């Protein structure tokens, strides 16, 4: 290997390792989230990563080349010709070769540990070491003679299918009878169209074609290869009978072995193939994180469904009711007690637990109604529609799964959040003063009334009139009784109006508080997991794009 070749090859090597890292990332992301990629593609990715790592770890200085092709095309004959010895049985019965056989070309004339490992991994037990002096130019080559892929023996085909996945380079051996067979072009060459860099096609048995016809066949074969998508593939015409072309093939193999590029090029082609498959599975646009608006909509819908609004309204109503009792006109206060406390009705009149305590009992609000549950379902649907819009269908489905993964917990969690909210239920400060004033006014009224009663009783018994001082025209007792009553009513009207303002403010505060609480549930159970999924999908996508 020349210095320049070496530099180029280390660069290619480094690039391949980077691509494999990205592929590993893809594989891990796919494994972590079933549905992110179709299962068979994910398996392919994992298998390719595994295969590439293993291959790079075993005899990376060897180049494994397979002689593959139809039965009777002359693979074994070529194998023998290249080895220079009749190792592989050649026969007229079809098919002859039924298991793969390896020839190891090594300058030391020995099977090193690395190579043994490699062959172990390739599962090729039949191996021959070619003495150094016989083929010094092919040092580093591991040549495989494969069975056929087109005979009635299905096992042969299976062995070929296994080995074409793991070798570094292909020599497809065809002959004048079979070079246009569908079995070869449709099943193999088209599938390995991306592997042109590690493909050589040999047209063997040219001795059977009259001299003038040969070039025509070679051209026709080249045309078919182009049509398969294999561009600029080297085609060598050979005959093991006359020996023509065999040296050209040997030189070609020697050059490729010396370059040591085949291994990396093959793996690169594998990654290219996967990159193509993967490209169709990821979105064109990068998945975006869950938008704030979308989160807000979800919170809104959850709040609706969980009855947070009703609770907020109850907070206001309760305030109004309690205010009425605290600052209402004392003689009619008892009336308000006839109506139920709206918060008690919801089981929310208990003081909320101290922050830090973890056990929060369910509110005695009823278990979520079917309607609320249906509303949650709808909220989640809308959320998924929003966040997954524009993603490929499989990803939309995946987002839907993640969003609904904790569907069963949502209703409970929301209820707990509402139960543990520190709702603004404490009495207002001014109530006490106004209440005092009310009692004072009621007292005045009572004194006036009693006074009037006493005056009346005295008059009835004909006792001397009690002095009844007057302010202006109105006597004191009447002024106290009527004035006290009127003032009390007035104060209570005013106080109620003020309490109404307070109630509205508390309703708003409660609503804000509950919205915050609901939003943290929505985030924890739905939006954040979905966000994480979208991030993973975005990473998957960018890893896939890095492959190209």
């Amino acid at each position, binding site marked *: 290997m020349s210095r320049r070749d070496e530099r180029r090859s280390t660069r290619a090597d480094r690039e391949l390792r980077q691509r494999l890292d990205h592929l590993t990332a893809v594989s891990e992301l796919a494994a972590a989230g079933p549905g992110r990629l179709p299962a068979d593609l994910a398996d392919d990715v994992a298998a390719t990563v595994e295969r590439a790592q293993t291959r790079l770890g075993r005899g990376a200085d060897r180049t494994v080349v397979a002689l593959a092709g139809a039965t009777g095309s002359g693979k074994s004959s070529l194998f023998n010709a290249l080895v220079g010895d009749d190792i592989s049985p050649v026969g*007229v019965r*079809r098919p002859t070769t039924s298991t793969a056989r390896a020839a190891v070309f090594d300058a030391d004339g020995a099977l090193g540990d690395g190579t043994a490992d490699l062959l172990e991994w390739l599962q090729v037990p039949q191996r021959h070491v070619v003495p150094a002096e016989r083929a010094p130019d092919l040092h580093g080559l591991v040549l495989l003679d494969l069975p056929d892929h087109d005979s009635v023996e299905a096992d042969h085909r299976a062995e070929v299918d296994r080995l074409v996945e793991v070798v570094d380079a292909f020599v497809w051996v065809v002959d004048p*009878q*079979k070079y246009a*067979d569908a079995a070869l072009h449709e099943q193999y060459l088209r599938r390995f169209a991306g592997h042109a860099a590690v493909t050589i096609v040999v047209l063997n048995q040219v001795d059977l074609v009259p001299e003038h016809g040969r070039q025509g066949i070679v051209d026709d074969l080249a045309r078919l290869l182009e049509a398969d998508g294999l561009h600029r593939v080297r085609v060598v015409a050979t005959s093991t009978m006359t020996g023509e072309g065999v040296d050209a093939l040997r030189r070609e193999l020697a050059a490729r072995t010396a370059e040591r590029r085949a291994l990396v090029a093959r793996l690169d082609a594998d990654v290219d193939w996967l990159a193509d498959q993967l490209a169709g599975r990821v979105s064109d646009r990068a998945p975006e994180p869950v938008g704030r608006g979308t989160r807000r909509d979800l919170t809104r819908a959850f709040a609706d469904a969980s009855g947070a609004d009703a609770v907020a309204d109850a907070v206001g109503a309760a305030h109004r009711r309690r205010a009425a009792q605290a600052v209402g006109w004392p003689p009619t206060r008892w009336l308000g007690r006839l109506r139920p406390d709206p918060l008690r009705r919801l089981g929310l009149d208990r003081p909320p637990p101290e922050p830090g305590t973890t056990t929060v009992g369910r509110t005695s609000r009823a278990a979520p*109604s*079917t309607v609320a549950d249906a509303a949650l379902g*709808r909220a989640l649907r809308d959320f998924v529609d929003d966040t997954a819009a524009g993603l490929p269908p499989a990803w939309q489905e995946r987002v839907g799964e993640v969003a609904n993964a904790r569907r069963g917990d949502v209703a409970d969690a929301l209820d707990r959040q509402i139960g543990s909210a520190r709702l603004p239920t404490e009495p207002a400060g001014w109530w006490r003063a106004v209440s005092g004033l009310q009692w004072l006014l009621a007292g005045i009224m009572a004194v006036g009334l009693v006074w009037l009663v006493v005056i009346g009783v005295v008059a009835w018994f004909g006792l001397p009139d009690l002095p009844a001082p007057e302010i202006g025209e109105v006597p004191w007792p009447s002024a106290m009784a009527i004035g006290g009553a009127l003032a009390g009513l007035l104060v209570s009207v005013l106080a109620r109006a003020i309490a109404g303002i307070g109630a509205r403010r508390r309703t708003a505060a409660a609503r804000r508080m509950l919205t915050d609480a609901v939003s943290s549930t929505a985030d924890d159970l739905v939006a954040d997991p979905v966000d994480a999924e979208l991030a993973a999908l975005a990473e998957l996508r960018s890893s896939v794009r890095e492959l190209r």
Partner: protein
Amino acid sequence: MERIDLDGMLATTTALRAQLGEVRLPLATDAVDDARRTADHVRRQLDDYVIPRLRDIDAPVLAVVGGSTGAGKSTLVNSVVGAEVTVPGVLRPTTRSPVLIHHPTAARWFEDDRVLGSLARARGTPGQPVEGAHQLQLVASDAVPEDLALLDAPDIDSVLDRNREIAQHLLDAADLWVFVTTAARYADAVPWDFLRTASRRGVGIGLVLNRVPPGAGDEIAPHLASMLADEGLGDAPLFVLEEQALADGRLPTAAVAPMRAWLDDLAADREARADLVRQSLTGAVADVSNRTEEVASVVEQQQAVADQLSGAAADAFADAHQRLADDVRDGTVMRGEVLARWQDLVGTGELLRELQSRIGRLRDRIAASVTGRPRNVEKFQGAVESGVETLLRERVAEATDEVVLRWRATSAGTALLDDAGDELRRPSTDLGERASRLVRDWQGGLLDLLREEGAGKRTTAKILSYGLNGAALVLMVGVFAQTGGLTGAEVAIAGGSTAVGSTLLEALLGDQAVRRLTERARADLDRRTGELLAGEAERFTSLVDGHRPDTTTAGTLRELAGELRRALGTDAGRRRR
């Protein structure tokens, strides 16, 4: 030959051909591609071979020379005929248009579209075959017997799909296959697929093992013979030809003499010819009958799949309907928002005013219009409306998901969904609107129910004319609140406050009437939701109905296939006797 009822069979096959023309396999079930191919295949076999053969049982024997590309079929035909009637070549594949060589006096049998009617004709002269792909070239030559025509077919295994198709087509139309393989090919998988078909069909067969390396014949020929025996073709004559230098592109006359003699003997022996034709014909008819059964079973399978698909849709929506009915019956609709609104309505005394006094109601309305706040009555009605709407929409969405899931599990369902596009995967777009209209209509309908019930009874009518609205509200709650889903406290609250209303109603109408009214109101709601859900299910079922194979097809096919089998069976029985 005369033992087969030719006319009867002709009538049956003609009917079968017509029926096969009607076969539609609209669903993309797993087996559909194969079945469509099979149906095509049978149609072609009937058109190109069975029907013409039944019409003219005495027409010349058609021997088709078929096999792999490069096996030397064209070379062999030229050698047998002794003239360049078809062009061999080194490029694979060479032959694209079949070449039919017949005796000049037998031209009438082949010139019209009697046999192989689906191929266009062209006429060439020996030595100057016409060019042009994929048409049947006719060459007259007195080197072939009058009662036998040779056909050089395109290959069965090259990259040209069309060649494979035509080859199959020609082999289907043959009375005799001359199957050519080579030393390199004889164990290939593809030709053996064809040979197995031939064996099954019972067509006459002769094998040529060509291009055998000198000296290898002793090893290969027995191997091939044993393979043939394994496939039940042990009786077929086998001609072994060594790889040898060609003279003028042809094999030496001596090399092809045995084969030539075989063909000549066959042509000369009237009896043998008739046997051959009958064997091939009965084989073809049996094959047609079997494949017709295959097609019929796929048609039936499609009907079953169609039933299964629309069943899945019907089930999912029937389930949704049932769940909705349960939701309504067990009172869960009343919970939460609806209950809160009901309590407001009752707690503020608004309900009693609705029920009893015009003036009270009037005052509430005026207050509402002054403050701009909706009355509790409207809030309650709104809550019921949105509750039922939400339920309805969610149940439809769930049912839709369910159908999509179940359809996706089948390939036919997947194809239908993919064709229908995104829309079908969601509930129809105006569902929300229709759902809330449904609830409003139902609420409106309650008034009519009450009016009907009150009609005739003078006092009740009078009172109801005051409190129709309120009565409708009480009725609504009665529909939803039948204990079940309510907790004890809730029952007390809802029940207690309804009690006021319902006692009033009962007092007005009698408790039986109230129970009847509640039932009717619930049934009305049930009917309306049922209709809506049926509409949604219909989107799926109508799609399936558009892709349902005709129901009578399968039966007719089976009947005709059975008739053919019976016709053959009697013949076979007589022959045995």
